Each structure stands twice: as C-alpha cells, then as structure tokens.
C-alpha cells in the first residue's frame, strides 16, 4: 500500500512538471506582452523593459522556469529597492495587477468553488445514486420509467441553459430565492447555504441525472452477478443482499467517477460561476488569461492539475478499501 502510494506520488510529480512546462511554453508564445498590458497607455520601450524586469520576464525562458520552481519552495522577491515585493513560499507567483501573492488570491477564490462543488456533489450523489438504485430495484415499474425519462432529459440539458432558466423562474420572476452570493461558511453557515442553493440545485439536478443512469446500470449489472446469487441462495433477506453486497460492489465505479468529477470541478467551474455571478477559481482563471495575468494563470492551471492528480490517487486507494476484489500493487 505504502509503496503504491509513493510510486503514484512520484508519477504525479512528473505529471505536474510536464503540465507546468507546457503552460509556461504556451504563454511564452502569447504575442502581446503582459508587461505592455500592465504598463498602460503611452508606455515607452524603457517603461516596458522596467516592468519586464520587475516581473522577471526579461530572463530567458529556462531561467524563468527555474525561478518559478525555486519560488515554490523558498519564496522569492520581485523587483528591487522601493518596488520590491516579497512573495513567501510556497510562492506561485506575484500578481502585480492585484498587488498580492497569487496564493492569497487563490485562498480567496478557491473556497467559493469548493463550496459550489461540495454542496453540488452531496446533492448529485444522494439524489443520483438513490434514484438509480431504487429504479434498478424497481426495474420496469412506473417509477423506473419516469426516472429514466427525467434523467435522460437532465443528461441532455446544459448547465448554461438550465441554470439560466432556474435563475429566471426562481429569482427574477418570482423572487423565491435570492440571487446567488458567497458568504464564507465560517461567517454564517445559513447565509452560505442560502446563497449557493441555486448553483447546487443546478449542478445537483444535471449531474444526478448522469449518476442515476450510471448507478442504475451498475446495480442491474451487480444484481445479475454470481456472488449476489450466492448471497440470495444463502437465504439472506433481500434488504441484506441489496445493501451489504450489491450496493457495495455497485458503488465502486461510482466512487471513481465521483472522485474524478469532484477533482476536476475543484479546478474551476467557470460556466456555473459566471452564470450565477460567483467569484470562484474558474472565473479567476479565465479573467487572468484575458488580462494576461500570467502568474495567476500558471498557478490556477497547476492547482487544477493537482486536484485531478490527487483525486486519481484517492480514488485508487478508496477502490481498494471498498472493493475487496481489488488489491493494489
């Protein structure tokens, strides 16, 4: 188990290095210079050179990259003299547009995205998995047929469309819900939940459709397996068979996909954030690209990659814990 995790971590590190290199190269190729964007109007060549020196982008590309990596571990200082800005480790860069280290921006933006994803995930997992399981057990009934219909519609809907219609119906037209806003959970849990209800409902409904379809199929699959038949033959009650044996086996692939979905979403749910006017990581990243705020782009891309990579590892470990048939090696 330990060896497995260590090996996975090493591979993950290699993945992150490659992704950071690609991102670095990609933005080095951007035709317009971030220094020019920052410098504003009527900038002379010297002004731009000065800004470039402060950003550290006057250096050759490999040097910039090693500077970046060193900053992650020991921190770094941008510019010198009166203009010096300290960026403590782990320094993912310093955003001169915001005048703060990128990690601080992320610390402000990530909780928003995490809250959206957390609530949404609870909703879609609970709703999706239970709907799927029940409809598998009650296969062929009116309930099953209705569930199939609803989930198919849900799976064919897009977040930008469904979210907007919810917004019109529940907020603009009737005022049943407030326009989404973010209040930190630690500040006021009730307002936190009330402000995020709409994105949760949107993500919850749309994704639960996918999860319901998946869990129904998985459950049907499991119910026809030999070990379930064995359990039945042993004389276990249907309840025991379903919950202790079938569910446990059926849920394994769902955990995998949920883990990856959550990991991916944590990196930013841009469309959801922009539809509901929430200032999460996804919006920060897209805006950063548009403003050529490269340190922030770099950091968010890496962070998104970290989430996915970590989710992969967690899922693999969970797999082994849940499903006795799987052994890590």
């Amino acid at each position, binding site marked *: 188990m330990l060896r497995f995790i260590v090996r996975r971590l090493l591979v993950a590190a290699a993945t992150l290095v490659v992704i950071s290199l690609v991102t670095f190269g990609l933005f080095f190729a951007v035709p*317009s210079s971030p220094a*020019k*964007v920052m410098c*504003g*109007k*009527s*900038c*002379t060549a*010297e*002004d731009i050179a*000065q800004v470039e020196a402060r950003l550290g982008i006057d250096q050759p590309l490999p040097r910039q990259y090693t500077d970046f990596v060193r900053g992650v571990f020991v921190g770094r200082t941008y510019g010198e003299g*009166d*203009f010096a800005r300290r960026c403590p480790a782990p320094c993912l860069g310093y955003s*001169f*547009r*915001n*005048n*703060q280290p990128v990690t601080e*921006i992320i610390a*402000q933006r990530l909780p928003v995205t995490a809250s959206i994803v957390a609530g949404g995930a609870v909703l879609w997992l609970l709703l999706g998995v239970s709907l799927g399981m029940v409809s598998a057990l009650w296969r062929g009934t009116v309930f099953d*047929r209705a569930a*199939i*219909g*609803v989930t*198919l*519609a849900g799976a064919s*809907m897009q977040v930008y469309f469904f979210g907007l*219609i919810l*917004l*019109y*119906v529940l*907020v*603009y*037209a009737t*005022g049943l819900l*407030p*326009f989404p806003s973010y209040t930190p959970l630690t500040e006021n849990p009730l307002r936190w939940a009330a402000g995020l209800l709409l994105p949760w409902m949107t993500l919850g409904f749309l994704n639960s459709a996918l999860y319901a379809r998946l869990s129904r199929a998985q459950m049907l699959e499991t119910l026809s397996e030999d070990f379930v038949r064995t359990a039945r033959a042993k004389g276990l009650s249907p309840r025991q068979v379903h919950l202790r044996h079938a569910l446990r086996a059926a849920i394994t692939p769902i955990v995998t996909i949920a883990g990856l979905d959550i990991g991916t979403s944590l990196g930013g749910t841009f469309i959801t954030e*922009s539809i509901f*006017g929430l*200032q999460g990581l996804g*919006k*920060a990243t897209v*805006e950063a690209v*548009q*403003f050529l705020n490269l340190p922030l782009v770099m950091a968010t891309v890496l962070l998104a990659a970290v989430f996915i990579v970590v989710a992969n590892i967690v899922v693999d470990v969970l797999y082994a814990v849940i499903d006795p048939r799987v052994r890590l090696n």
Partner: protein
Amino acid sequence: MRGRTRTLTCGVLAVALVAGGCTRTTDSGGGGEEKKTKTQTGSISYEAADNRGPAAAVDGATRGGTVTVMQVSDFEHLDPARNYVNVQQVTGGLLYRALNGYKENGSGQLLLVGDLATNPGKDVDGDCKVWEFTLRDGVKYEDGSPVTSRDVAYGIGRSFAPSLNEGPHYIQQWLYPGGVYNAAYKGPYDGGKPAPDGITTPDDRTIRFTFPQPHCDMPYAAALPTSAPVPAGKDTRDQYDLRPFSSGPYKVKSYQRDVALELERNPNWDPKTDPLRTAYPDGWRFTFGLESAQIAERLVADAPADQASMSWVDVPPAVLPRTTSGGVAERVVKGPTQYTWVLNINTQRVTDLNIRKALNYAVDKDAVLKAIGGQAAGSPATTLMSPTTAGFHQYDVFNAPISGDRAKVAELLAGKRPKLVLAHSNIELRTQQAEALRKNLTDMGFDIVMKPIENSSYYDEIGRKNNPYDLYIGGWGSDWPTGSTIIPPLYDGREIVAEGNNNLSYLNESAVSAEIDRIRKLPAAEQDAGWMALDEKIMRESVPVVPCYYDAAYELHGSKIGNTFLSDAYGILQANTIYVKQ
C-alpha cells in the same frame, strides 16, 4: 416512453413565454421616448453661496444605509494620478477631493465650484497664465491630519511618474509645453523634486500654478482627480490604487480586487467644508464580476436585498424591453451623455478622400445603433462633438438617409471595391455591432475584413500609430464641456505618438493644427463657436471619421435609492447627494 420528459423543459420555458411571449411588439419599444438632446449649461461659479459648505440638503433625504453598486468589471485605477474613467472619477470623488468639483442638483444646471479650494481658482494677472487656489480651512484626512497645499502639489508631482501615467495630463502638459509632458520631470520618485516647476506653495493653504502660455480652462482642469491631495508619507506608489488615503467623506474599508470594494465613513470629514457632497449613506459596496444582464435583471426584479442597489452599467439590449413597465420605468435613469461614437477611418491608410466620403454615405447608423440597444444606447450623429458641448449646433455635411445612400456610394467608389479591415472589441455587443457594419458596408460595395481584438487591449491596439487596421469604432467624451477637450486631443496631428493615441484617425493636417492654435488664442467667449466651426470644417474637408451616434446612458437603480439623476459632468448616475430610503 422517454419522450415525456420533453414536456418538463417546455413547461419551465412556458413560464417565461407567458410573461413576455404573447404580446405584440410595436414600433416604439421605448414607450413614447422624447427625443430631446440638451446642451449643458455648464458655468464656472464664483458665487460665495455656491462655493460654501455644507451642500444643500436634499428634500426627504435620510442619513444611513449602504448603497450597493453592481459593476461588470473592477476599476482599473482609483489612484488619483491614474484615474481617467468616469466611473472611477465618481467613485474617486467619494474618497478624495480635487481642487474643484461639479455641483449638480438634477435640474440640468452644472456649476463648477471650488471643492478643496474656496473658489474655482483666481486668475491672478487676468491673462490665464497664473492661477492661485486657496484651500478651505478644516479639511482633514482620514487620520485627522490637515490637508495642505503641499500635498496637492505632491499629488500633481507624482502624476508625472512613468509608472502612474494613466491619468489626464492637461495641467502636466501646460506646465511643460512642447513635447512629452514628463520628458523633463519624472515625478518625486528616484530623487525627483516633490513638485514640478511652475507650482509653488507660498503657505499651507495656497497653491499657485504658473503656465508659460495662457490656459483659461484651468478651473476645469483642476476638477480632474490629479489635483487631489496625496501626503508624501502615505504614498504607496503603484499600490496606492488599492488604498487611496481619504480626504473625502468615505475611506476604503476593504478591497478585494475583481470581487468587491467597500467604503465606510471617514469620521474626520466635515460636511461644513464640502459644498458638493451630502454623503447620506453610511457606506458603499461595489461588487464586480457580474454580467450586465445579471445586473439589469436583478435591478428590474428589485428583490428586497437589491433595493438599495444601483449600477453604472447601461441596461443591455436583451433587458431593455423589461424596463418600460410602470414599476421599473420610474427607476430608469437615462439621457444623453457627452460621448460621441464614431467609426474612425485610419487616414494613414485610407488616403482617398472619396472612399472616406463614400463611407459616410454608406454607414447604416440605424443598424449600428439597434445592434446595441437602439435609442436607449444613443441617437444618430452627424457631428464630431456631442450636443452637450458648449456652443453646439447641428449640421450634416452629407445628408444621407439613416440607412445609407447607395447611389452616392456607388458614384464615389466609381466601380472600385476597396478592401478595408474593420477592427472591433471581441465582447458580444461590439461584435454584433461590427457584424452589422460588415454586412452593411459589404452590401454597399466595400470588401470588409473583420478583426476581433481582445477587449482589454482594444484601445491599446488601435492607439498604436502603426496599427494595421482601417476602420474601428471608438467613443470619446469631453473632459469638460467645451470643444477644447474634444477637437485637439482627437484631431491635432501634432499629438500623435507611437503608442497610446487618442487621435485614432491619425488625422495630421497642418490646416487643422493651425486652426486649433488660432482658436486657442481667441478670447474665452469666442472659443466655443470656434471649435464648432472647426468641427464642421474637419468633416467637410478632411472626413477622418464617420460620426455614428451620440451616446446615451440608460441605467437602473433599486427602489430604495433616492435623489437619482444623471450627472451631466460624468454621464452616469451621480453619487455625491444620493441617499438610501429608510
């Protein structure tokens, strides 16, 4: 079996369909719009009554509450040296006070009075070369220390710094005429003097400007934020943007870039020293990152949480029809602004005068306007200056029908099909507008290539002298309501530099430059007519642009915001005397 789920979607949509889908849309979407354009009655007032604090109380106004301002994007700059956009200027006005300011009460009367200064400035020798301002007694910063004339001088000094170059540079250029404004003096950093040549502070309350040439517009220039005081000890240079040191009624409570800015009361602000601001609300909250449709829909809905909200973002076309019903219409603040939008023709590339004239006959101003909201967005233009400019009179050199004159275009093009590159900002509204132009000009016999430019760098790109484009839309509003802040910055070829140009047609004709010099030397009373005559002369002889439309503001506020009117000085909802209804 599975098809029944379709009814779910239609059912949800049906709610919206009932709301707006089954009524007939008629020609007058605006609901009986009055098509008036008003000329600003701007004047400089030395009357003691106008210049005295406190500002007149607003009938029925109450103190307290917090105003929320919902915006699409964050302010680029709040540093007074870098503040040059109307929304930033109005916000800046809550935080710091310039020498002069505009006094408005919603009746259309616009008075320039002293803000920090006791009056709009003394023309010491009567030749507009030496200007003296006396600061009010008892104006304090947020820490209780007094505002001094040295801080005003230092504030202007730092606006010369290359790293803080985004603000207006009228005073700066007047102090150092000929050449780039900061070629000789680069601000107080890196060993520079704390104040530029020509500015003296005989005592703590007096500041004197000495210009080599006469500048009778000085009272207006002193209303721009660069003359706000910055104490040297509080100067954080490029970080000052995020937390300007307050000399106004509010100070920064918190500022999270691109997310929210919160202002709270500055306890050391004394209303008795301030003729402009009543500062009724206890605080302000600016939220950023919403889309214009979200803002407008929220303000239309007027939910309890949003009732004390407003926005400086024009209602987007999609939401306009929802603002005409009774309860909403009364919360619309609209009217003409000082901005004129033109289709700039890059005269360095399009040198054939006939093509420039043909473009003027070809552009379908109706289509260009309807793409961005029709009459709510503006009215068709034929002149360079806007009707709000002093001395304005309407003329039309070409007299083309609103959707263009095909025969004239064909005649002027004489069988040619010029290939022109039309650059546009890549946001949806501007893309729609550019596509309307492309289609229109293509039909009229031009070969149009569309080039989208990232919105954040649009003006940078077209402001490069050697930009590769032929046509691009741009808007400009005067810094004060005379032609002197429209014609010279936009059409004087001598002001063309390598980057950051305002003269976007790159018109460089000595006749125009000479005429500008002649008008500048005219007595103040004759200048207005002079600028207007030059406006027409440029359109008749040089044709550097196609005037497209006079901009109009169309903004919404919640039902709990009181004393809402359009500021004639800034073309947006005013902030100085607004209040929250309790």
